[in-house]
């Protein structure tokens, strides 16, 4: 379906582009570059912030827009926790603490002549997976024609008194052989995220996780996510884990709007999509999430 639509757009664009294309002198207001910190943080890892700047649409400067030698401060519940150390080009990492669920973290960054930016976010309490079940091969009547898929069911209880947002990722572990023929100690296990989607119309697809959802419909109730993926994605008998992330509202808005904008790129006739940002006086995202993992097999 999308294919046909794209064919039509392509045909129309061919008709259109073959006509006149001229360069116009468009008055774009001078863009004052803003700091763009990007950080997803959770309880398992040290915070890593990638820092860069925005670039005006007609800016022809070729040099990289990463920002080095910036002061990146993190506060926990209003108290300074750490000044992040730069470990790479535009990358700053915390060393001394891992964030905890339920606490509010503030980010404050100063660099060069740019406006100081700050943001705040909390890691939501992790939502446990009550139980799960896995069908190796089940017939699914789906939007893509129907076929045999592997299906994973994850059951959760959504807390009633808060707004919850979920993201689900499924990983499989491939065994890589370093030598041929393989000998002892010659293998490496690598985690790989697989394309796992849901038929439920209440879920949202994002390029970050194929299954994302808010709790509007299921607030306070038990709910089972039914995640489908092709059996071709997994090696027989390989390990599969499923991760249920409880993400903050800002995380959810950012992931869905970013995907929205990516989907509409290249289509000059669609309405522009505004990507969400919670950075004051800047752009980017500072958002927390927590995880519950189950080993499926």
């Amino acid at each position, binding site marked *: 379906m999308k294919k046909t639509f794209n064919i039509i757009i392509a045909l129309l664009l061919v008709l259109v582009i073959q006509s006149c294309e001229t360069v116009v002198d468009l008055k774009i207001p001078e863009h004052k570059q803003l700091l763009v910190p990007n950080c997803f943080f959770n309880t398992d890892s040290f915070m890593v912030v990638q820092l860069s700047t925005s670039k005006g*649409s007609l800016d022809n400067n070729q040099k990289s827009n990463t920002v080095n030698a910036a002061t990146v401060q993190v506060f926990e519940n209003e108290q300074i926790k750490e000044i992040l150390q730069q470990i790479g080009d535009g990358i700053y990492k915390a060393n001394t603490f891992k964030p905890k669920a339920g606490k509010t973290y503030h980010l404050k960054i100063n660099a060069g002549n740019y406006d100081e930016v700050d943001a705040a976010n909390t890691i939501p309490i992790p939502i446990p997976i009550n139980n799960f079940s896995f069908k190796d091969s089940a017939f699914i009547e789906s939007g893509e024609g129907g076929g045999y898929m592997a299906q994973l069911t994850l059951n959760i209880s959504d807390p009633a008194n808060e707004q919850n947002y979920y993201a689900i990722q499924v990983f499989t572990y491939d065994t890589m052989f370093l030598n041929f023929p393989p000998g002892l100690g010659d293998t490496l296990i690598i985690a790989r995220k697989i394309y796992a989607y849901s038929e439920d119309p209440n879920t949202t697809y994002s390029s970050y996780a194929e299954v994302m959802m808010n709790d509007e419909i299921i607030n306070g109730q038990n709910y089972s996510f039914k995640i489908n993926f092709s059996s071709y994605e997994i090696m027989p008998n390989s390990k599969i884990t499923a991760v249920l992330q409880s993400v903050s509202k800002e995380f959810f808005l950012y992931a869905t709007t970013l995907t929205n904008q990516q989907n509409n790129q290249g289509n000059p006739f669609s309405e522009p999509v505004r990507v969400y940002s919670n950075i004051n006086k800047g752009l980017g995202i500072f958002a927390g999430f927590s995880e519950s993992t189950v080993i499926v097999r």
Partner: protein
Amino acid sequence: MQNKLISKVYYLSCCFIFSLCIVSKAQKFTISGYIEDKATGEKLIGASIYEPRLKIGAAANSYGFYSITLPADTLQIIIRYIGYAPQVMKIKLSKNESFNFKLSPSNELKTVEIVETRVKKIEERSQMSTIEIPIAQIKSIPALFGEVDVLKALQLLPGVQSGGEGSSGFYVRGGGPDQNLILLDEAPVYNASHLFGFFSVFNADAINNVELIKGGFPARYGGRLSSVVEINMKEGNNKELHGEGSVGIISSKLTLEGPIIKDKTSFIVSGRRTYIDILARPIIKAKNNGAPAGYYFYDLNAKINHKISDKDHLYLSFYTGDDRFYVVAKDGFQNYEQESNYQLGWGNMTGCLRWNHLFGPKLFANTTATYSKFKFYTKISEKTTQTNNGVTTKDEFSLNYFSGINDWTGKVDFDYYPVSNHKIKFGINNIYHTFNTGATQYKINQTSLTNVDTTLGSHPIYAHESTIYIEDDMKLSEKFKANLGVHGSGFLVKNTFYKSVQPRASLRYLLPKDVALKLSYATMAQFIHLLSNSSIGLPTDLWVPSTDTVKPEFSQQIAIGLAKTIKSDYEFSVEGYYKKMNNIIDYIDGANFLESNKDWQKKVESGKGWSYGTELFIQKKKGKTTGWVGYTLSWTNRQFENINFGKPFPYKYDRRHDFEVVISHKFSENIDFACTWVYGTGNALSLPIASYNGLGYYKGGYQNQSTVDYYGDKNSFRMASYHRLDIGVNFKKKKRYWERVWNISVYNVYSRKNPYFIYFGYDDFGNKVAKQVSLFPIIPSISYSFKF
């Protein structure tokens, strides 16, 4: 004794005078009947009938019926209609009379002027914000690819904007393209464009007249916020068989009309089809592996008109039209063959049965039943044939996505003319809507597996829209006229009921020097909405009903203006208006129609809009040179809570200045010339002002997935202004039994590169620049028409 006599005489004379008064007051009679073209029998809609001494007049209604009540006296009545020689009739009225007037077309080069008794039409009418364009004038306007277009002609009027280059969607006084009620012989037409809006579905050869109402809506109209376009089809010559046709670059058309029973029953059939796909087929097949591809559209109009008796008339009209895009792809190699068939199409069908009945000279009734359907569909089918080890398997897969709207309507309308100062219209109607908001049907036939045939997506939604109205067009004094009315409507969908009572008022006061001051107020309600995905007229537009979460749209409009006929030929009007719209809907950021598994109600947002401006219009309808000049200065804004952070923003089609000149000139009997020049300030659009890194993340490390575009305020940029000159020349030659016309026209004479859309790209040196794509350069075209 003398006193008694005097008082008796006095008493008797009083009685006599009193009774005289009563008798003379009661001595009024009604003349009624039809006004038609003498040669063809076509009814002359809006023809005027006027008694100049008493200054009493009336106009023929949409069926050519008139009714005028005059005192018993010797009267001189004048019947006039644009393009026809007026008729004068002397009558001594002593009872109700029934007359059918038959007018003959006037010879433009020898116009007979009756200056003193001319009816100054524009000042006479209390209705304002209304423009009527004679069909002859529409046909003379030079057009894109030589295709005369009724809706494109409307876009040349002040207060009406076209969407973009080539598009035939129109925006009236800041309203959206779904806020126009387009009626073809009283049946609503939902999608009036072919080929993404480059052409409209109306074949000008089948049309009698076109009227556009932008404000001050009389009570009989409702259901859309911004405009009413009433298009009446011709009825068909009821005396002789005639036809006309034309062969053009893009399409050809043929119209046939004539009597079935002379003077009683007539028909008209008109068809149009493009044939560029047939002509290009060999070339396309060669480039596409032997498989055809192409695009075509067609229109078919048909009408039968039957006069049952002097009191009863029956009309049956029908329209169908379709656009179709098709691509066949063939692929194959040893033991494997695949044929794919893609089709994209959309179309309307309308049917209408009407019965006019005269309940006496003062009451005219019209009962109508109509059916209207709009459908958009995408069909993909794939057939794969494989041979493996001697076993042949065939797989067939088809997917059919469709959406659309069907209406069944029943109406009864009355025109009541009780006394000469009042013309009352009242009526009742009901529309039964069926909304198909997007369903997908899958069929799989596989030799190896079980077959599948399912339909997913939304179920049809049913709704009833009912209306009752009453209006009175009255003359309160020599100088003061008013049309007051009330329109009541209700909408029932699932278990939700919406109702609305809409007062309508139009007033006219005649100032000195015959300048009319007009004032109008109208509220309108719209219970159905159009979800329009993109700015090109793609038929992915979806009609949806109001529901319990998506409320009906409302508008209020006031307008004030002055009108005058200058030098008896030029109709001049200037109007200012202010319009407020509530509950208008728009897609939320990035939503699109393709996510058919998502409830459309969750993809839209309600907001408000307001528009105000001034329109100036000068029109000349008679003489060797005809045409008009229009200018509009307007502002249109929108505001939605979740779009543009809740701040008001200019509507995409907010055009500050809009100016047009249309001129037709007849050099001689055989040569006439027309040109149009339009100018408009550019459309508003949103462009990214900066870009930055976006973050994608999954277990195992960060990944910068993309570059994010950062937009400032919505619609804060303007494209360059739009202007264009078109010219056309007709060379006529009258032969014995027929007439032929060669038409040569040029679209965009000075090849102005008008902006179609803008994006950011790179120039030849690798610098980032803004690029503008234009669509149509200078396009000459030629067509050949004939008439017999």
